């Protein structure tokens, strides 16, 4: 069982977001980058599957050299090999194209990604890859089982869940609850330094979208406080002022 896991390096969840160059660039100063939380789940699940059934986990990241510490952390968690495509992805289409080209000639039974990256929140890469590689797709999954060349997964749907079966090879995107993410231990960290991290150059310079500018959400006006002993008033205000109930 060969599994490829897409790892995206994203700002730590506590990051206060700000922009520079006249609001055209994300301000990375002082920002700590981490493995996208959903990708941590995808990676852990991939390790669980290969530990039970044999096989190898390769991680891939489209990014410049600054993402390597994040990739080393993924290797420390347990992935065997890493590939970095040396460019900054402009959008999901670009990232997926780079991944597709970088793995041409290799074969994976499963490709796991996160449900979405928490920086650009695309939720695109899994779907695009499945189409480009002509693989089956099960998106936003909370469970994965692989048996006899088939994968059975539970995915979120609007208002519930669906159990879906697909043949291999298959692309799946990880949703919370898929597993408990692993944290690297000392031995893992030591071993990670020796593991292969291959750097490949991108073959395309494509992008159909451009992030022109950014803005922060409008500040809330100050909160209207209601006395605790008069709490019922909240319901009345929601009804009369806001016409919500």
């Amino acid at each position, binding site marked *: 069982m060969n599994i490829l896991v897409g790892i995206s390096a994203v700002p730590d969840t506590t990051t206060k977001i700000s922009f520079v160059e006249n609001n055209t660039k994300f301000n990375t100063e002082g920002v700590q980058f981490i493995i996208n939380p959903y990708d941590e789940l995808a990676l852990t699940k991939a390790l669980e599957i290969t530990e039970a059934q044999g096989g190898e986990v390769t991680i891939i990241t489209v990014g410049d050299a600054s993402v390597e510490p994040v990739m080393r952390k993924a290797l420390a968690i347990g992935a065997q090999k890493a590939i970095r495509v040396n460019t900054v992805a402009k959008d999901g289409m670009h990232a997926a194209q780079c991944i597709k080209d970088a793995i041409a000639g290799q074969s994976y039974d499963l490709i796991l990604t996160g449900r979405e990256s928490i920086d650009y929140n695309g939720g695109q890469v899994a779907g695009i890859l499945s189409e480009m590689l002509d693989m089956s797709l099960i998106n936003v999954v909370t469970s994965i089982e692989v048996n006899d060349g088939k994968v059975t997964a539970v995915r979120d749907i609007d208002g519930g869940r669906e159990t879906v079966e697909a043949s291999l090879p298959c692309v799946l995107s990880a949703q919370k609850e898929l597993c408990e993410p692993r944290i690297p231990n000392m031995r893992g960290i030591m071993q990670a330094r020796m593991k292969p991290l291959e750097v490949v150059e991108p073959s395309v310079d494509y992008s159909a979208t451009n992030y022109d500018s950014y803005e922060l959400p409008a500040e809330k006006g100050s909160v209207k406080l209601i006395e605790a002993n008069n709490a019922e008033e909240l319901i009345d205000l929601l009804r009369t002022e*806001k016409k919500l109930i």
Partner: protein
Amino acid sequence: MVFVLVESEEGKIKKYSQEALTYGADLAAATGSSCAAIAIGEDTDTSDLGNYGADKVYHVTGSGLEAFSPGGYATAVADVVSNNGGNYVIVSGSYTGKSVAPKAAVKLNAALATGVVAMTDGNSIRKTCFSNKAFSKVSMSGDVKVITVVPNSYEIKSYDKAGSVESVSTDVGSSVKTKSISIDKVKGKIPLTEAELVVSAGRGLKGPENWGMIEELADVLGAATACSKPVSDMDWRPHSEHVGQTGITIKPNLYIAVGISGAIQHLAGVSSSKVICVINTDPEAPFFKAADYGIVGDAFEIVPKLLARAKELKAS
């Protein structure tokens, strides 16, 4: 031409698809074009789609479209769009839409933007990024553009359009690569992602046994229930209720947060709610800074009062 994929359940058009149709109709008006709906599957009621903004409806049925599959639906959408000269494909950011849009974009060799909350003009959109901590204006190039619209970000308008239906029969069987084994719908409850009103609670509630009053308040208001991450991590509440940066992102008209501190990761998932009410014993709780209304007080005193008043109003 602008195409909009519409979803339905038990024949009825989903609210988020009505929103996507409004987006499509507005985009068609802005670009001097017309708006066509794509409805997939036998049991969709297409009769109302003109009122939601469709000049025309393509009702696609056939082998491989009996049940949802990302491959089957994406093929159906891409075929209709390319056979009829589509420039824009609008899809709701529902779970279905999120599986279909990227595949359709590849098939159509299109630019793709997801998480869209507004249209700036025909070639650019406004989307959420950094988990709702920011927005970006994104320009799109190319002949075909695929856009997913975040549910509850576009107000439904009513139209008086023809909505004439053209039946398309097709066979997408070869692109169906997944098989549905079973579907488990949460019965009798409003799905969180579709709820207009949400009552949510956090660790301040002390334990799962105290959720009765939260559920009751939600019930009386016609709201869905949600919770913070630690609450679902401790299994006080189901994971499907966890909202925030690593949970579900929602933007209801009303979000009532009880005993939730308002950590940055929690706010990321709920800060786009139109009206936010916070109930917390700690006047310094960060959530108050993001709130429209606040009550500094003990949930175990405040919630019963709100409940009593809501019941009173409901009865009158």
